[in-house]
């Protein structure tokens, strides 16, 4: 078990390193970039070029790429992610992210839990009663969920629940003055979480359904039934435990999707999180901020995969002895 863990950790660390190289490369090698469109009010092309050169020197962008990457990496590993250029000029990026990280993690975490809480039961029902009316309804629902553009769903929910009905607040995480009111916070959370979970529920329920169907065909299920074990226990104890394995991997793979969805959801609901910060950074060409958040999301991705691997090893003893 320990060898397995160590091996996985090492693999993931290397993966993370690779990703950091790629991300850094993308940011600085793709033609274009933060300064191409600025002209500093300069009167001629040469004057503008001189300004760009000065900026480059100031921000250390004129040194060779590998040197820049190395500086960035060594600093990042100790926690210094640089200074924000435009979003909050001069402020250390780390502090900016810190203030928003919790909000995004809350949103992503709640969505993951919520989506699983819905997908599991409906996936199981769908598998236990295939081709019934429930199955058709659930399949139709998951088709809908997979085809729905999240931003539209979010805007529609906003319109229905905030504008027309006025039941839920239109955005933000708290109402000023009520920062500690749990009910208020929940009211602010409901719509973003539901919107973020929709696509996840759709995909997960289909997956759970097919996984359960596979498992329920197995001989040991038949044996259990023949032995007289009540159907509910067969399904939940024997069936679900075996069907859940691929779902765990799926969960790990959904973390990058959750983060991408969070970017859009946070923008729609003006949720004070990392997604919106990222978007602001991109719009305002704030490269250190963008870099840091991208690396953070890559970290989340790799971390999610690692967790999924671990969970898989815990749940499936066969893996541990590879």
């Amino acid at each position, binding site marked *: 078990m320990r060898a397995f863990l160590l091996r996985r950790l090492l693999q993931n660390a290397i*993966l993370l390193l*690779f*990703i950091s190289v*790629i*991300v850094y490369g*993308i*940011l600085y090698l*793709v*033609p*274009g*970039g*933060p300064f*191409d*469109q600025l002209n500093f009010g300069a009167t001629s092309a040469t004057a503008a070029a001189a300004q760009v050169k000065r900026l480059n020197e100031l921000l250390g962008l004129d040194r060779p790429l590998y040197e820049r990457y190395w500086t960035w990496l060594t600093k990042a590993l100790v926690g210094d992610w640089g200074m924000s250029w435009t979003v909050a000029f001069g402020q250390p990026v780390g502090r900016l992210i810190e203030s928003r990280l919790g909000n995004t993690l809350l949103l992503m975490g709640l969505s993951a839990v919520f989506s699983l809480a819905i997908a599991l039961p409906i996936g199981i029902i769908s598998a236990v009663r295939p081709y019934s009316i429930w199955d058709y309804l659930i399949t139709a629902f998951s*088709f*809908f969920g*997979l*085809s*729905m*553009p*999240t*931003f*539209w*769903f979010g*805007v*529609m929910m*906003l*319109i229905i629940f905030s*504008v*027309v009905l006025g039941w839920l607040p239109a955005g933000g995480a708290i109402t000023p003055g009520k920062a500690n009111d749990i009910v208020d916070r929940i009211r602010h959370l409901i719509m973003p979480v539901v919107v973020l979970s929709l696509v996840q529920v759709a995909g997960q329920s289909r997956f759970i359904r*097919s996984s359960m*169907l*596979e498992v329920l065909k197995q001989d040991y299920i038949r044996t259990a039934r023949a032995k007289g074990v009540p159907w509910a226990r067969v399904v939940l104890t024997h069936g679900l435990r075996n069907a859940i394995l691929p779902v765990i991997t799926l969960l790990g793979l959904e973390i*990058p999707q959750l*983060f*991408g*969805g969070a*970017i*859009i959801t946070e*923008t*729609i609901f003006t949720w004070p999180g990392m997604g919106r910060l*990222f*978007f602001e950074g*991109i*719009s305002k*060409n704030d490269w250190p901020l*963008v870099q840091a*958040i*991208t690396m953070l*999301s*890559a970290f*989340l*991705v*790799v971390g999610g*995969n690692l967790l999924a691997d671990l969970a898989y090893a815990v749940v499936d003893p066969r893996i541990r002895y590879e």
Partner: protein
Amino acid sequence: MSASAMTVPMPPAFDDDVLATEEVSQARLVWRRFRRHRLGLLGITVIGMIALACVLAPWIAPYTFDKPDTSNIMGTPSASHWLGTDELGRDVLSRLLYAGRISLLVSLVATLLSIVIGVLVGSIAAYFGGALDTLLMRFTDIMLSLPSLPLLLIFSKTLRDFGPLRRALGDNTSVVIIITVLTIFGWMNVARLVYGSVLSLKAREFTEASRALGASSFRIIFTHLVPNSAAPIIVAMTLGIGSRIIAEASLSFLGLGIVPPNPSWGSMLSGVQAYMFRNPWLAFYPGLTILIVVLAINFAGDALRDALDPRLKN
């Protein structure tokens, strides 16, 4: 043994006609199986109609997509504007049609390009094996584990700010950029599918036979192995168009996809939040169109998956 008087009657002489059955091509078989899925049929009908309407937009749209009519801002649906007007007085229906041309074109081209790249990478990796295989597939895995939306946004923004590109392409810059960006992050799934398929086909006898007959590797891969992997590729392509439509719409919604003056279903939704309180219906139609189109594609793709290989069904 007594010679029995019973003799076996001779079978009647038969012509070939009696035994001959209708020759049915693979395509017809697939179509027959596809026909049985009513939802799939509904899907392709809907897509067909919408695609046709969008292609014919310059001829059938009542207005052009950028003709402002300041006397009729945010009008509700009426006889002259079937779906109302937006915040600049432009006709929503016409904009939907024109936007559809671009959105569908972008998704189609991006999917086709992704497939080309994916097939190349997957088949070469699977056929030649060894170091090339490990290199290519590792690269594919790394690309797959990259967080896609953040990188899509970054790419779009940097390319957009690239002066020479913008000067060369003018108004169509955003379209080219988004096709490029969607392709770069979309070929991996196809590559994996093709990899798996070619790997298993490589071991079959017909490959060995081709090699024995002296066929070059190139020929074997692209005339035999890849076409036999067509089924999952086609399904991936169909579903891929749907997911790219949503991706393009999301990017346009955030302002980093297709920008004005080119209309897009996603960007038609972006300014909406400011006007949400005055005219909520503006947000409804573009998103509904996306939903209908992608839903139709998903139905058709699902039916296609069953039709192409009934064994795939659980």
